[in-house]
């Protein structure tokens, strides 16, 4: 019998697992996909928001500001790429200045540190590549950029190291109330647990409705993005937002912790996890972004992607024990600022357990912390030492990002090992560069095959069914039509 079963290992599930792993609880995570952080958490704006957007008094307002501060500490402790670069919301017309005033007041009410309004001159001095018709900006120095999948992965890894079980490719298909708690039906068998945490992202409504009366509706909302080459990475130095206008939510332009430039998203309601990019969406994004930063060179794009955020009809995060389902805790509707809020949302779970008298003592032997080898960031002396210790660091496999065989092998041997080519990419960055794995893909595939002892034909690009190779050439002697 588990104490807590967490459904979903995106950033909310991972943060919850990390938080709960500090206590003497039997906790397990059930993730439907074959890797953690493989849905909304891997495809978003990668920003820890300062917290001036949410209306004061909402859960979003409080958890955003608290969560962003906690995230900063966690990223430092777990060696997650993080940079507090600050953000600017631009006013591109006099009418938009009044919107900045409103955001400023929100920010002050929400307790956002260091927030202030800038003149056009101050704004352009900070960001010379902005549109010359900027009339002012709201500056929030606490806004940060992060590697969102690494953030989730790091928390999940430390949780696993401290006793949390992780079940991947393990969707929960049925939930039933039992005398002592709940029974979950999964491919790994029926699992009994006292508490359930619903951190299922865009599937949170479906999971909730398995256990409790219908309460909220998830409205999957797709956002499309451009990821530009590092040659565009210093086009701007802060996260550049626009004011929302009649054409929808503004499009942002932001540096990434990996040195690229991220542009997007739009916001379109879709069915389920429809993450297809569209010509119209991409055209909207590029046109909108040029309003803020006219000189962006979209010819330097290296990838388009889309993510689906779990918008919800209640307007605020859905956090708490579901009515009529004692022990079933929703962490749902985690739209923006869900990533920023995640560590604070996780603390809400321990508050609920504590209120029930079910939060045992903290572990005294907790093993926190995590470091990663990032070869390209090392000094020449450190590089020499690494290769001397392990010659695998002397072989560069991903040329664009200078990722070594040593780092790829690490990704395949971590507490939550990569099993796919994209899993390796998320863990160490191989294939993230301008050739998008065209060069290193076959070599990473070979390393996965050898290290995990599986046939090259069984190596996946990403999710189930994404086999890269279809058959051996020698066996193919006939036409297939």
């Amino acid at each position, binding site marked *: 019998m588990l104490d807590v079963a967490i459904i979903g290992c995106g950033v909310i599930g991972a943060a919850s697992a990390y938080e709960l792993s500090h206590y003497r609880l039997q906790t397990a995570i059930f993730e439907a996909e074959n890797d953690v952080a493989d849905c909304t958490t891997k495809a978003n704006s990668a920003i820890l928001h300062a917290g001036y957007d949410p209306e004061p008094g909402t859960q979003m307002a409080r958890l955003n500001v608290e969560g962003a501060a906690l995230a900063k500490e966690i990223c430092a402790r777990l060696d997650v790429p993080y940079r507090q670069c600050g953000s600017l919301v631009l006013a591109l017309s006099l009418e938009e200045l009044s919107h900045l005033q409103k955001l400023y007041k929100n920010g002050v009410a929400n307790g956002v540190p260091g927030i202030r309004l800038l003149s056009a001159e101050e704004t352009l001095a900070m960001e010379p590549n902005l549109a010359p018709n900027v009339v002012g900006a709201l500056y929030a120095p606490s806004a940060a950029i992060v590697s969102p999948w690494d953030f989730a992965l790091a928390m999940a890894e430390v949780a696993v190291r401290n006793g949390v079980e992780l079940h991947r490719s393990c969707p929960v298909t049925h939930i039933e109330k039992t005398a002592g708690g709940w029974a979950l039906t999964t491919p790994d068998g029926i699992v009994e647990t006292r508490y359930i945490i619903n951190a299922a992202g865009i599937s949170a409504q479906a999971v909730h409705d398995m256990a409790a009366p219908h309460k909220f509706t998830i409205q999957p909302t797709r956002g499309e993005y451009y990821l530009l080459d590092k040659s565009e990475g210093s086009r701007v130095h802060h996260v550049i937002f626009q004011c929302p206008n009649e054409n929808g939510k503004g499009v942002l332009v932001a540096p990434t912790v990996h040195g690229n430039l991220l542009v997007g998203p739009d916001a379109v309601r879709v069915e389920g996890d429809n993450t297809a990019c569209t010509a119209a969406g991409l055209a909207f994004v590029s046109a909108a972004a040029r309003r803020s930063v006219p000189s962006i060179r979209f010819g330097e794009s290296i990838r388009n992607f889309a993510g689906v955020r779990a918008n919800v009809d209640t307007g605020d995060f859905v956090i708490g024990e579901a009515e009529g389902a004692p022990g079933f805790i929703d962490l749902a509707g985690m739209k923006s600022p869900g990533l920023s809020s995640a560590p604070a949302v996780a603390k809400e779970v321990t508050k609920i357990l504590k209120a029930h008298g079910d939060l045992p003592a903290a572990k005294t032997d907790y093993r926190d912390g995590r470091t990663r080898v990032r070869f390209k960031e090392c000094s020449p002396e450190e590089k*020499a030492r690494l290769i001397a210790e392990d010659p695998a660091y002397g072989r*560069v496999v991903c040329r664009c990002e200078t990722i070594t065989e040593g780092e790829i092998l690490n990704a395949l041997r971590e507490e939550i090992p990569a099993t796919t080519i994209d899993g390796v990419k998320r863990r160490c960055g191989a294939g993230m560069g301008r050739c998008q794995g065209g060069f290193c893909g076959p070599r990473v595939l070979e390393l996965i095959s050898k290290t995990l002892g599986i046939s090259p034909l069984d190596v996946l690009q990403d999710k189930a069914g994404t086999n890269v*190779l279809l058959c051996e050439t020698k066996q193919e002697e006939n036409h297939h039509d």
Partner: protein
Amino acid sequence: MIDLVIVGGGPAGLAAAYSAWQHGLRDILILERDNELGGILNQCIHNGFGLHRFGEQLTGPEYAGRCIEMLHSTGVRVELGTMVLEVTPDKKIHCVSREKGYQILEARSVILCMGCRERTRGAIGIPGTRPAGIYTAGAAQRYVNMEGYLVGKRVLILGSGDIGLIMARRMTLEGAKVLACVEVMPYSGGLTRNIVQCLQDFDIPLYLSHTIVDIQGKSRVEKAIVAKVDENRRPIPGTEMEFDVDTILLSVGLIPENELTRQAGIPMDPHTKGAVVYENMETGIPGVFACGNVVHVHDLVDFVSGESDLAGASAAAYVLQGETADAVVLDLVPGNGVGYTVPQRVRPADVDRSVNISFRVRQNYGPSQITVTCGGRQLAKLKRQRMAPGEMEHIALPKVLLEKADGPLTVAVEEVIAK
């Protein structure tokens, strides 16, 4: 201090090394990141290489083999599995390998031969889902020819670059069905001989002025939607065709691989996306040369080798005779119909008898003339029966002619109207 360090052991690096040795250099080191010499030639198992250089048809590995054999009679040293991380403006080369760890080599001269890479889906923004089954043609070529695996059974090829055409034939021979090759431009980007031998001979249709407007499929490609485009390359609604395919190969252009070049602060040409080079393949840093696809993308390896002969000879001259004295520099400017020129700069005093200019035209041309002008004065005029963007043009400008120039030289083309 090493006389010459060559970054890259593909066809450019191999030819440059041999030429530098022939011109008297004795301390030459090739740094190759792969575990064998030859570069991309190793996966190009089709023939058609070497007609110009060796006077016979060779496969890629055979061509590489010839170049490597030539080095056997020299004392050129090679370090394999060695990745260069940085070349500094004062010619220090930072590199790593399993065997030697982190090295900082000092060189009197450097030749950059890093080749090029393929443009990807992200570079051209194809809408749709992102399932498995979308590969650059070169990556698919590696899987098929070197690893022995087939990446797909029903294939659509986007782009009519040479690698895409070659792979259309290769996949067909391996038992896959190639349904079509789709090209957004009104002309092919590949060699005519490849259109004939790789598409027409196998009844694979080529759709010019078409592109992929949507990719469908959740885990694996299931469909590609192709539409005709207008003269501004915008899809025309109502012209969509559906192709049931499990694989899309992209042959949508090559980009010189110039991270090291940019890092070193060497001036770049936005048209070629390679270094700006002088008549002897020297870059903006004296003693640092570049040749092959890292300078501009070639369609024939034979011309890469030829250009690299020049770079090798120039590096030898630089080390043995010293830096060229300051002299008059003429800029070469791409004029009407010309995409770029290599070299971009010429020092007439350093030209021996003539300088070879390579360039590409921006569209298909019938009977036409190439002109070289200086301040409105025509210095040279050459005739061509036809020219195409997929086939690099070469002209030789005699030294005597260069000495008549007193400013930038413009290379332009125009069609000759038949009477």
